[in-house]
């Protein structure tokens, strides 16, 4: 379980690429800002109050957030087709941008995601 392996079936993108994701019959756009490894931290409490943070150390259970993850800027516009989304990227007409969105790379399978470089 490596955080440094491209998940099978997922797109392979570069920082700065745009991802066009199909959800139901609509398309939305993300910009790839970074690859990151996400690790769950446990809160160690003293007398019920947070004392410090500890790296999770499970037994057989998988670490909570299998990666790698992408830090993305998500755009608000939805499009009728991937071609319309591509045109909007070119025209910089993607709508409101929300930075700091984190999603697992495995959530972007090549079957439903297009990479625009």
């Amino acid at each position: 379980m490596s955080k440094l392996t491209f998940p099978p079936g997922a797109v392979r993108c570069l920082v700065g690429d745009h991802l066009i994701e199909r959800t139901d019959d609509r398309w939305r756009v993300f910009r790839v800002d970074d690859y990151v490894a996400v690790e769950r931290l446990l809160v160690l409490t003293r007398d019920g109050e947070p004392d410090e943070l500890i790296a999770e150390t499970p037994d057989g259970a998988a670490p909570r957030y299998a990666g790698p993850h992408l830090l993305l800027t998500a755009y608000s516009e939805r499009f009728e087709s991937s071609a319309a989304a591509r045109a909007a990227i070119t025209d910089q007409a993607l709508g409101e941008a929300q930075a700091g969105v984190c999603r697992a790379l495995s959530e972007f399978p090549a079957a439903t995601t297009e990479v625009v470089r």
Partner: protein
Amino acid sequence: MLQRSAGNHAVARLMRQAKPQAEVLDEFPTDSVAPEAVPPEARVLKGPDEPAEEASLGRMLLRKEEDTKELCPKYYRYDTKADVASYNCAGLAWRTYDYRGDLDAERSAANAGSAPAGKPGEVKHWFWEYDLRLETDDGRKTEASHDFHTVAGVVDKAGKDPDDVYTKNGARPVFGPGTGPGSKPPARDRARSNDPSNKEMSTQDGAPLYKKRWNFKEVVKSHRCPS
């Protein structure tokens, strides 16, 4: 039985001849202990390709792996070429060498077997699930989570439980050989990093971190030897 007898005599001889080691051996009431309980000086965790001879206390105690080799070769030792960080206890127990970390799925997989019948060659799986938290001796603790551990081994020609069971916890190293019941996680032991370094974990002020486990549920089922 001949192998077993020879093994026991060899252990007894070792205990007589090596005074310091005898003190170590005296601490082994059975032929298997939890890896965490093995004193460092006796921790002879050899890979499957290494010769089974006097270098390893584990090998001295090993009795049934030759049966495993014949009855279900996939369970003869384990694949040391597999990246130890890329598979967990279930990946080892099923000899798939992948990270099978979905507790519900692994419970179902274990439960899909049949009641152990003591049939030579059947693969006996032990599966435990439990609540788990980290804690310190001075009362600090984390929220509980639900976790599991599982091991498997091959019933020998005499219909007896295996003693060549290998175990690993998460992405940590493989330990063994031992028995199935002997691989049950302890109620409390040192927390270690979930990677091949297996380092003991402590708080920022140096207090040892421990894993506390409770509410154990056990599944023991037998499965066919995979091809």
